[in-house]
């Protein structure tokens, strides 16, 4: 074959690849109108961990053992048995809050953030991670899951956990108390962790309402009096108290990684509370754009294959020709 022919074939493939690409670049996914979520206000959290206990009860998960013994509340990190936790951080440095005299401290609640444009949903090869089109709840289906743990890789918050200590382990994560057999949200109830929170540090609601409430709170000054909702945004139960700290002018989850349905407010920089700094564009949007640029409609691969088959046919017909 002539070098010219090869270049022609390769050029055709490249041309198709570029033309396919422009059609499929993807932006962050939009948030659904009826998306539900939670607002965690670290300035209100007293670290009682009632939410952790309630979560274990609803999900029928055993307590964490420390040195073989069952402790009062020793979960230190999210795990396959602990889908939400309360951690204490030094508000000034983000380190462990052991020495309080070194600065302010803050509690932090961690669980699945139910991303608007969820990485785990985007990368799962078998649709085991799903995002409900209405509520936006990110659920997991163990019957579809192959256990590749790409969701673990792709989650910016290290949320999905695999049960390594079991022969037939599965992925575990918070499903906003709406998993099969629980379905609290579908039945008009709220999540276990918001239901039991005694101070209203964690409340349930639609993302839209929660975002509006978060913005109202950002206007408050330390010492102001404010009527805080308990359990959920539309609850009749409220309590009036003084604002404990000046709010950082930042609602975590409003824009991070394309936004999340769990929003966080704090009196200390939120990046000190175990949450990462993220760009506004979701990683899923990056990944899918690159992938769909290469494989949009399989047009480019088909074009290249046609070129390759043509060359292979020419070059295998009638034996070998050395140049």
């Amino acid at each position, binding site marked *: 074959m002539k070098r010219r022919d090869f270049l022609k074939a390769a050029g055709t493939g490249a041309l198709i690849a570029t033309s396919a690409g422009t059609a499929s670049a993807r932006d962050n996914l939009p948030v659904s109108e009826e998306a539900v979520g939670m607002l965690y206000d670290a300035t209100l959290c007293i670290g009682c961990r009632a939410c952790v206990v309630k979560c274990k009860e609803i999900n029928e998960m055993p307590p964490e053992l420390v040195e073989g013994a069952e402790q009062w509340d020793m979960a230190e990190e999210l795990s396959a048995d602990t889908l939400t936790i309360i951690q204490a951080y030094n508000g000034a440095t983000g380190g462990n809050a052991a020495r309080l005299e070194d600065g302010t401290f803050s509690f932090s609640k961690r669980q699945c953030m139910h991303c608007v444009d969820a990485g785990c949903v985007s990368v799962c090869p078998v649709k085991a991670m799903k995002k409900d089109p209405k509520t936006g709840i990110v659920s997991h289906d163990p019957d579809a899951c192959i256990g590749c743990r790409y969701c673990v*890789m792709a989650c910016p918050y290290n949320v999905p956990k695999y049960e390594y200590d079991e022969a037939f*382990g599965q992925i575990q994560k918070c499903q906003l108390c709406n998993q099969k057999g629980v379905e609290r949200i579908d039945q008009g109830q709220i999540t276990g962790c918001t239901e039991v929170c005694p101070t209203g540090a964690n409340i349930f609601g639609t993302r839209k309402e929660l975002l509006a409430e978060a913005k109202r709170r950002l206007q408050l000054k330390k010492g102001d009096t404010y009527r805080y909702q308990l359990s959920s945004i539309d609850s009749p139960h409220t309590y009036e108290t003084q604002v404990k700290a000046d709010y950082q002018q930042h609602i975590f989850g409003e824009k991070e990684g394309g936004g999340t349905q769990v929003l966080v407010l704090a009196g200390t920089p939120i990046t000190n509370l175990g949450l990462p700094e993220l760009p506004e564009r979701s990683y899923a949007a990056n*990944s899918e754009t690159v992938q769909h640029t290469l494989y949009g409609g399989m047009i480019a691969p088909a074009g290249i294959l046609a070129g*390759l088959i043509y060359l292979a*046919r020419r070059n295998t017909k009638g034996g070998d020709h050395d140049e």
Partner: protein
Amino acid sequence: MSNQYQRLDHKIVTLPFVFLCLLIGITALILVERFVFGLGAVTNLNDGYPWGVWVVYDVIIGTGFATGGWALAMVVYIANKGKYHPLVRPALLASLFGYSLGAFSAFVDMGRYWQAYNMFLPWQMNFNSVMLEVGLCVTAYTIILVLEFAPAFLDRFKAPRLKELLDRWLFVILGLGVLLPAMHQSSLGSMLIAAGHKVDPLWQSVSLQPLFALITAIAMGFSIVIFEASLVTAGYRRPSETHLLKGLGKIIVYLLVGYFVLRFGDLLLRGELGRAFAGDLRGNMFLIETLLFLTPLVILLSPKRRSSGAQLMIAAVSLLLAGALFRANAFMIAWHPGGGYVYFPSTKELLLSIGFIAIELAGYLAIVKWLPVLPKVEHA
């Protein structure tokens, strides 16, 4: 074409072969333990490091080492350089081992392997997932490799009608055999994009990730051909193939120049090159990786050095290490999930990975004596 190849007339059961079988036996025991007690019983994998050596070495690096068949198919059948034909079968055999073991490793590492078939059910497929692309593509290419290698088997067992059928469709098989590895080798790089900030900026290039993976994979393909051919020549005292291999060395030069321009251009544009000189583990690993890529470029740039079998071998080994380290760095060393997680492979993880290499070596040694794979020696 078939008379270009011959069986190697040696005993199959030799001392090294027995030693390899011993390692394979240990691997079998570890596999039993993994399937009975779970991944945690044999690996150090944890919630921060979901992928360890079994994925990174056995699958991601392993298939990178298995690209010889692909590289030669491109040269021989697409660029029509028929003079390289004698190298095709041994390269295909090594590719076949690398890919089938890579696919098997992925299966062993799957937390819910008994549901692996879900990947092949159209209604379960998520076409946004890079993993799906890799999974389907690797499976398809493994089948293609079986078909590409089949002539060696059919020659040995004299099945002319099957051979004829295969020959008629060979051009389609060859086309797929070039396209499929290009697709999934680039996707191995794309897999990192979704991990975002968890991959160190030295290895996290959003838009060029697939291209880096592709170029290094092709370069590794030509290197492994040089490496295997040199080893077989030395090991079985066969005539040197340097006159063929030096041409491959020239192709590698072009690939490496392209790689360096893109890789460093990307780091400069993103303003992350300074991290390489931070003196920390990641910076130093980047420097080692770069040195390993630079060594073959320096050697192969000179036509004189390119014609020396020993120099070619050094360049090939350096490039194979470079490609492997590039992947290990990107997936493990550059991985910082936060949350205080650390990972170092367990002895059993390493033993299984070593065992898989033993399977490849023992299988290769046995099959070149059983089927006509190696090029026929002229004066024989």
